[in-house]
């Protein structure tokens, strides 16, 4: 397995699995690239993440990322938590295989989305204390009308299944 020992540990013994029924915020993101989903529940006390829990439908990396980011976020202030980046999570996990880096997006996006959901509730934008979803569709931006390799930004062939310039596989119906 190309996963680091830290990833394997968090995958096999995931921390903070579950839901918080009376959560203050819920973030839920789905990754249309591979059909995975993550829900993050937060309990906020004094602007601090008192509790963080997750449920994840996804690969080993996605589960490890969920476990790691919830562990990292717990106890932090909202501002600190919002600063946790994808790269931080990947680094804390001892690295992720290149084709799994997008799974760390999933984690940070869900956490940030949960915090935003909490803030929106507080400001009255959405109903508080409901488990209604504040879903943020998680779609990679398109190249803007043309057909570009998302890795090296070379213009690519309409029918290309890899970028002839950097050799990277072009995900799905790549953007054009």
């Amino acid at each position: 397995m190309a996963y680091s020992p830290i990833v394997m540990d968090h995958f096999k013994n995931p921390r903070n699995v579950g839901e918080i029924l009376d959560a203050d915020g819920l973030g839920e993101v789905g990754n249309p690239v591979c059909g995975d989903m993550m829900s993050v529940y937060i309990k906020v006390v004094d602007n601090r993440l008192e509790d963080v829990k997750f449920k994840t439908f996804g690969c080993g990396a996605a589960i490890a990322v969920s476990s790691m980011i919830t562990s990292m976020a717990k106890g932090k202030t909202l501002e600190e938590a919002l600063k946790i980046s994808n790269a931080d999570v990947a680094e804390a996990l001892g690295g992720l295989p290149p084709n799994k880096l997008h799974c760390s997006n999933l984690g940070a996006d869900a956490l940030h989305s949960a915090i935003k959901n909490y803030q929106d509730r507080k400001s009255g934008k959405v109903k508080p204390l409901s488990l209604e979803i504040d879903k943020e569709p998680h779609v990679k931006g398109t190249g803007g009308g043309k057909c570009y390799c998302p890795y090296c930004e070379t213009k690519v062939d309409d029918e290309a299944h890899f970028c002839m310039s950097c050799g990277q596989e072009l995900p799905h119906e790549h953007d054009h």
Partner: protein
Amino acid sequence: MPLIYLDHLSATPLHPKVKEAMTQHLETVFGNPSSDNQVGQPAAAALEKARAQVAALINAEPKEVVFTSGGTEANNHALKGVAIGLREKGRHIITSNIEHKSVLNSLRTLRLLDYRVSSLDVDQYGLVDPAAVEKAITPETILISVMLANNEIGTIEPIADIAQIAQKHKIVFHTDAVAATGIIPVDVQKLGVNLLSLAANQFYGPAGVGALYIRKGTPIWPLLDGGLQENKRRAGSENLIGIVGLGAAAEAAAQEMPMNLPRIKALKERLAKGLIAGIPEIKVNGHPEQCLPHLFSASVTYIEGESLMMLLEDEGIIVNTRSACASGSLRASHVLIGTGLDHALAQGTLVFTLGRDTTEAGIDHVLAVMPGIVQTLRDMSPIYKKEHTA
């Protein structure tokens, strides 16, 4: 605990007879089969022996067997070779939606070169409808390619029927028999195909070695241009060590099939029944009867396949998943989507492929541990919760 290896689709261990043949060849022969001298002679003899062994497995003439670097090359050769050979006659090709990537991507390249492709839908079991094939034929059609058995769901296609239609319309017909050859009886005469691809690593031979059956008179251009090897149909110094392995594997497969087939089929039934009984809400993929006897594919709802596969590996069980997450390309399997699965369900798909070394004890271990693992993952899944609270 010995490994319970249930991924014979990805790789098979070498058959002891294959090992022996390859090791011996490697130790003693180094000549070039094209060299007309005492060094080339044993090499040429080894090459022709392997050709006869492969021909015997599929009931072909040895001259009709062309060695390739595997199933992918055989498929590329069949499709691109006929496309170029018959480019003056027409530029339309018919195939199905659930072919292997080596077929689909060859056709993608041909599209770039101004060929047109009709790709047929399959039913929920993955079956291609021969009538749909006939309907898709135009005066421009030069080639039909439909696989003998699908490598993800095991469905066996009605090849003889489609071949008859192709014959009636005088269209070249190719079948990708990589997943089937060496596992079930494959007879090019009964099938009535012009071209058939096979690969050694599906039946205990080495990886990266295969063959393309080319019926005498089939108009096909080489894929690898160059020297005069393989009766001028496939240039390049032969991978003789590998070819010797393919030959030995073909002979062993033919010999052992009557013995292995019923045993493996029974083990698969045991696995299927046990999993269906032990795990609620799983969907079996592929055709209930017209199916490879060693392959069992099922989609486990609410969870993703890679994590399931990894937890099974922790129990010493090696299986395959068709989850997008595990695919390298992060795309959902076109085969599963083709049979009508949605993306979430496709994500939870495991493929078990049994082999000559699979035991009842191994299957029972799977049945013992898998339900628990599934439950652990489901308990972690946001969709599982949602479905069950909704």
